[in-house]
């Protein structure tokens, strides 16, 4: 352009021109050049489901030379590397098309299986195929439901035989102003019964709730009106929480996560825009009515920060279109602490809108490899939603990368709960209800075949599930429209 010619523009122009010339001259000019390594690619068969014990249509891999032509006669080894079942043959040669084939037999009981294909001659890396033996699994609605008719429900927590549910009042239902915390007592059969309601009068929405690990404190974040901030309520009588401390935060807190680090209880909270931040509070003196802010880490204002997940001194912050930020807040890998979070890695998830997450520690494999991210896409609250589950490989926390995703047509995900011993992810899916995913073995690509079951507890038109939590062998689900539900797991 002639509008403004700077030396930088000129350099860019020359660079582009020269690059174009080189590319143009190079096309077909000389067959010589750097030799490319052979490629080992997955052809077909990944992500199947079948009856337990069934033999699946074959898995196929292809070996291609550096120039892209098929390589025949390359030995490929097949091994079941996760789960039960078998694969046969355990070795096969590539044919004239460069393709090697093997067939997997699924486990005799429902579950996932991963088969690894490795090519000889150092051609790689190895490829994995995951499939799942599906049972006739389903959720069952056991109790609860339609128990908060005057307000829309928000987040919740279950502990000590009680469930505490928040309310969302950005648009009032019939219950008037003020954010309420509903207290449900869980019976011997786990069924919830409403026993109390605590009103935070100057709060619009109780946005998040969690009970401290020792069961003494119910901690709530709040947004809207003059009472925005962090609340701590005593659970000395778990049926009647009483407020003991409050830390005001202008613009409000969207969520908070409790974690004990160095013997102290901290809340890692997500401060709302316009100046979003990861704000950490020390709750160790909450019994004296004191909540102390120990740090505030600014987050880019791309809608800011929505949720956090803290484990082993590592804090994952879901920062919308910026993706996921990973901080050392006491782990020691980078000298961070709650008072001085140190960012050690980040990744932008596809589609952005990173909302919530869970770092999956798999007791079956000992791996701490996967981090699940919920994407909160556009929706019409109460009826429609969008957004997928994204899976990050966080083997290297400094360089996380996205490896898999799950998509549900017509609905989007919200909060998760991981049943780690059984390797199952339960995800709230707003108008899609609740789903269970088998997250055993290797997670790669489209996880649709891993869906075990789904349920819309309130039925069509009365389901908009915010969150789920496993407790006492039951899965509890909080639904914005229809309140607290008790479900059996599939």
């Amino acid at each position, binding site marked *: 352009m002639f*509008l*403004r010619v700077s030396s930088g523009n000129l350099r860019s122009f020359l660079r582009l021109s020269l690059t174009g010339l080189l590319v143009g001259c190079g096309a077909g000019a000389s067959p010589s050049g750097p030799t490319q390594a052979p490629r080992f690619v997955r052809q077909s068969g990944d992500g199947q489901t079948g009856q337990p014990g069934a033999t699946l249509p074959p898995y196929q891999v292809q070996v291609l030379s550096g120039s892209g032509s098929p390589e025949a006669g390359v030995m490929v080894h097949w091994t079941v590397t996760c789960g039960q079942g078998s694969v046969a043959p355990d070795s096969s040669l590539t044919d004239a098309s460069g393709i090697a084939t093997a067939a997997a037999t699924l486990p005799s009981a429902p579950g996932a299986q991963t088969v690894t294909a490795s090519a000889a001659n150092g051609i790689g890396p190895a490829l994995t195929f995951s499939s799942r033996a599906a049972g006739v699994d389903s959720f069952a609605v056991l109790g609860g439901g339609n128990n908060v008719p005057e307000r829309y429900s928000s987040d919740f927590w279950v502990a000590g035989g009680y469930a505490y549910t928040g309310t969302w009042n950005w*648009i009032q239902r019939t219950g008037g102003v003020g954010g309420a915390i509903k207290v449900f007592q869980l019976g011997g059969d786990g069924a919830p019964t409403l026993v109390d309601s605590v009103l935070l009068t100057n709060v619009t929405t109780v946005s998040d709730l969690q009970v401290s690990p020792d069961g003494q404190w119910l901690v709530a974040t709040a947004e809207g009106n003059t009472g925005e901030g962090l609340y701590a309520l005593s659970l000395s009588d778990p049926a009647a929480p009483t407020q003991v401390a409050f830390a005001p935060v202008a613009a409000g807190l969207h969520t908070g996560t409790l974690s004990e680090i160095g013997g102290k209880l901290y809340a890692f909270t997500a401060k709302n*825009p316009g100046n979003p931040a990861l704000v950490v509070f020390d709750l160790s003196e909450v019994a004296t009515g004191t909540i102390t802010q120990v740090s505030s880490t600014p987050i880019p*204002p791309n*809608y800011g920060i929505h949720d956090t997940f803290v484990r082993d001194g590592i804090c994952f912050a879901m920062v919308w279109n910026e993706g996921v930020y990973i901080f050392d807040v006491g782990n020691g890998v980078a000298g961070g602490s709650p008072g001085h979070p140190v960012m050690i890695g980040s990744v932008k998830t596809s589609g*952005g809108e990173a909302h919530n997450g869970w770092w999956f520690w798999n007791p079956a494999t000992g791996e701490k490899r996967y981090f699940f991210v919920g994407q909160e*896409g556009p929706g019409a609250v109460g009826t*429609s939603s969008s957004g997928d589950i994204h899976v990050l490989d966080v083997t290297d926390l400094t360089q996380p990368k996205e490896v898999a995703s799950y998509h549900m047509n017509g609905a989007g995900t919200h909060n998760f709960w991981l049943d780690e011993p059984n390797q199952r992810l339960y995800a709230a899916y707003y108008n899609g209800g609740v789903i269970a995913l088998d997250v055993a073995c290797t997670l790669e690509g489209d996880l649709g075949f891993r869906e075990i079951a789904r349920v819309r507890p309130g039925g069509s038109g009365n389901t908009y599930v915010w969150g789920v939590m496993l407790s006492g062998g039951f899965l509890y689900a909080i639904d914005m429209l229809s309140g607290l539900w008790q479900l059996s797991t599939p």
Partner: protein
Amino acid sequence: MPDAKRALWKSRSEGRFSGLAALVLLLLVRTPATAQAAPWIMLMGQGIPSTTSVNPVPGGGSLTEVRLVQPVLMLQAAALADHLTFTGTANLEGLTIPNGELLPGGWGEGFYDRRHPHTYAHELLVTGQDLLRGTGLPLRLSLSAGKGFAPFGSDDPMSRPVFRYPVNHHLAQILERAVGIVGIRAGPVVLEGGLFNGDEPTGPGSWPRLSRFGDSWSARLTLLPAAGLELSASRAKVHSPESPSGAGPDDWKWHAAARLDRRVLGGRLYALTEWARTSEANGFFVLRSLLAEASFDVGGHRPYYRFEQSDRPEDERTTDPFRAVRPHLENSIVGITRFTLHTLGYGYGWPAARGRLEIRPFVEGTLGHMRSVGGGIFQPGVFYGKSSLASVALGVRLSWRMAGHRMGRYGRLLDEEAMPAMSGPMEM
């Protein structure tokens, strides 16, 4: 976006904007000036003291307010034989209606059922117009840069006969942006294209983010098949209008209109029919509008009527039910409400100050209803206590040389007859 990349984009955006301004000046220098047209400057203005009664308002019940609305001071100037023009419009609504004007169905910039005050610097624009005059080419070329309207949709409602703003203001106009506009006319065809910043203003004192200049664009094709008749079609992509940082989803907008403004039966007939469609977040939300309005001026009398059926997105509300949560917390809405409205009005205009001032009292009434479309928990019948609405307005439109001015078009690309104020008396 990494910091370095963001800085590069910001630098490029600001560079594009200043580059366009430089291009306007460059072409002006190259354009031969004729001796006969002297520089001129003209002051214009408007203000409407009015009272408006509405039933229902959010939460139910009725409300009446008296306000001075649309207080506008406008300065237009030209030099270099009219090749260089300046348009500056100060809108003082931030002072007279800081909490908005009662307007059932109104929305935008965090306001609901109140029209938000516009920014103080409503327009601030330099235009190089008729830049090819003297070249012998049968073309009219104009370039504009500054703050103003993007080339999209219909004229600003402030300059139309109906007092109340339409529900579709944010579907049928894109305004108060840092714009760079190229316009060209060949015979009866006018084509305009513009780049601008996608972010909506956030308050009366806010300015466009120059770092976002060029992240949005619009184009408008206008056909002039007969005197006083215009047919137009517009298309726009507006990036993240509701999130100033640029984190929000895009709007894709369509607009088509037919406009008639001509003398008939001893009077002046004005009519506009327009259709608009805005698709947000990759089509997740679609907002539609259909509007038809007409007025007839004869001997100072002006009866007028408007039919409108327009969709409004519903956002989470603050403790003030007229206000929505800003900035947004995510990309969800709580519903879409469709307003169907009939507005009937009558005004009578007295000229004063040798025709420069027009004093036009008016009375105007609106009847209509609203219903939820597209899902969501927002139920207008619950929120307002009923699903029908009515409003009455009484006021006096005081116009100093603004009568007939069309706001939002630049470069003198339309016929002179269609832009009466632009071709009005000029003086230095």
